[in-house]
Structures are given as structure tokens and as C-alpha cells.
């Protein structure tokens, strides 16, 4: 019996905490991801994203003066974005329902609350791989179809991950 084979994908991790970046990096290498790229703020994160075109992005929300939400908007809307459809996991210490809603409305694919465990990150990676939602563009929003994953379900998922 075997599991998901992540050996062909590259993941970009953006967090202003060196320790969180190193821990997530360790987890990802444990899952046998091919390469882990790093950045410590939204601006350098977007530069790395454009240059390296990773398969998955994991980003913090609050990063000093910069915001992961700004990064999400850049990835989804900028003409320089090599892949506006890339799965984006928001990994953040914010757990309030309003925050989840805001991140969802910015176009994130998935929301994972800190503190994070190897198990919760693994499950979330599998979840974005299995995500078959189409993308929606309506002038104000561009991202995964929000109708197919209701907020209560998202929050319930997050709460279960926290337990």
C-alpha cells in the first residue's frame, strides 16, 4: 500500500518566521516533495513565484508590513503571474470566521490554521491535489468556485484540524 507521490512537485513557502518556514520545509521534505522554495515576505514571495512557477504555494497572512492577502491578489490577478490557477494554502494564526471568509474571497484554495502539525499539513496537501473545482472570474473575484465549499464546512474542517 502506498500514498500520494509528491516527488515531482515544487512548493513555495512564504512566512516571515524563519522557524515556521524551516518546520514546514522539514514536513514537506518528509512528504518527499521535490523542492521547497522560501521567501519571508509577500513581495519577495511574488518574485520567487514568478521566477520559479511552483506547483503549490503556502503563505502566511501577517508578515510584518506585508500581507499574504496581497500576495494572493498578485498571484491571481497580476499579468506577470505564470500560473494564476496555482493552489494557494493560507497558513495563518488567524482563526476567526471573518478571516477565513476574507481569505476565501481573496481566492485562496484552502485555509490552514496555525499551530500546524505534520498530519494537518499532509491532509491539506492531499486536499488541494484532489480539489477539482473550476475557477470563477466575475470582475471582482478570481479563484476557486466558492459555492462548492461553504464557509461552515471550511471552518468545521479547520476546527477539526485544530483538535
Amino acid at each position, binding site marked *: *500500500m502506498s500514498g500520494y507521490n509528491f516527488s515531482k512537485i515544487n512548493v513555495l513557502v512564504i512566512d516571515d518566521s524563519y522557524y515556521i518556514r524551516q518546520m514546514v520545509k522539514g514536513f514537506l521534505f*518528509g512528504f518527499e516533495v521535490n523542492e521547497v522554495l522560501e521567501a519571508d515576505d509577500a513581495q519577495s514571495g511574488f518574485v520567487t513565484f514568478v521566477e520559479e512557477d511552483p506547483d503549490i504555494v503556502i503563505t502566511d497572512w501577517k508578515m510584518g508590513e506585508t500581507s499574504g492577502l496581497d500576495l494572493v491578489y498578485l498571484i491571481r490577478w497580476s499579468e506577470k503571474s505564470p500560473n494564476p490557477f496555482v493552489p494557494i494554502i493560507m497558513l495563518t494564526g488567524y482563526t476567526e470566521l471573518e478571516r477565513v471568509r476574507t481569505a476565501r474571497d481573496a481566492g485562496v484554495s484552502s485555509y490552514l490554521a496555525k499551530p500546524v502539525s505534520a498530519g494537518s499539513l499532509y491532509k491539506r496537501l492531499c486536499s488541494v491535489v484532489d480539489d477539482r473545482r473550476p475557477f470563477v472570474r466575475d470582475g471582482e473575484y478570481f479563484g476557486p468556485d466558492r459555492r462548492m465549499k461553504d464557509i461552515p464546512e471550511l471552518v468545521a474542517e479547520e476546527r477539526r484540524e485544530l483538535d
Partner: protein
Amino acid sequence: MNKKQDLIDPPKRVSEKVPPFGGPTPEAAIRKALNLSAELMDSYEGWAVDDLQMLWLEHENLPKGQDVPKERINKIFDIAHETRGQGGSFGYPLVSLIADSLCKFVERKGALNSEQLNIVQLHLLALKAVLRQKLKGNQPEMGGELTKLLQAIRES
């Protein structure tokens, strides 16, 4: 009026590169992930103490005998926010719990009076106790009691 929406099937999906087979089992992958992060987790106490010292310093430097404006407590929120994200991630869920309570307490306040500063200090003392006594891992009973106590303190 409904906005016009375009439904777009992404031209490439990550699932094309990630087959659901051929990799380690979830249990093996998670075990390997934890092994690779073990050394980092062991060193958490050191920088947690550093963060706590920064919090104390910020608290000590707040003006006494007058309301503290929001701008001055932003730094406390910033450090506490990082701490709540890190604590449980590195094996100290009680640290995350206390730091989360502190964040909730200061985040929506325009200013803090001296009584409220005492509540901030209580949170810092709780963090100090957890780290000093190395209260690692899940502590369900203590966690439950602490959650109730901190909520009562915040709402007092």
C-alpha cells in the same frame, strides 16, 4: 442582479503531477516529516523564551498611569500573534492557547487602561509558567481550565 461569471477549468492541475500512489503511506510520510523537524522542535524553548522576554520588555515600556494608545500595543499583538502560531506547532499547545487569548484581548481595543494592562501581564505570567515548567504536549484538563479562566479574565 447576478454578476456574469465565467467558469474556467484550469489548464493544468497539480493532480497531474501527484498520483495517489507510489509515495510513502500517510503514516510513513508524517513520521518522516516529524523526524526531519525533531531538532527544530527541540530548540523551540530557546526562542520562545526570547519572544517572551520581548513581550515583557514591550509591556514594561508601556506608559504607566495613563491609557496606552493602540499604536503602542501593536507590538505586543505582533509578538503574541507569532507566538500563538508557533507554540503548538513546536509541541507547546498551551503557549498557543495563552498567546491566542492575549491576541483576542488586545486586538480590538483602541487603548488599554491600567486594569487591562494587568490582564496583559497575567497572560505573560502564564506564558512564563508554561515555559519554565516545560509543559509540553496536549494537556487537555489544564488546557480546558485555562481556556475558561482566560476567557473569564478577558471578559471581566
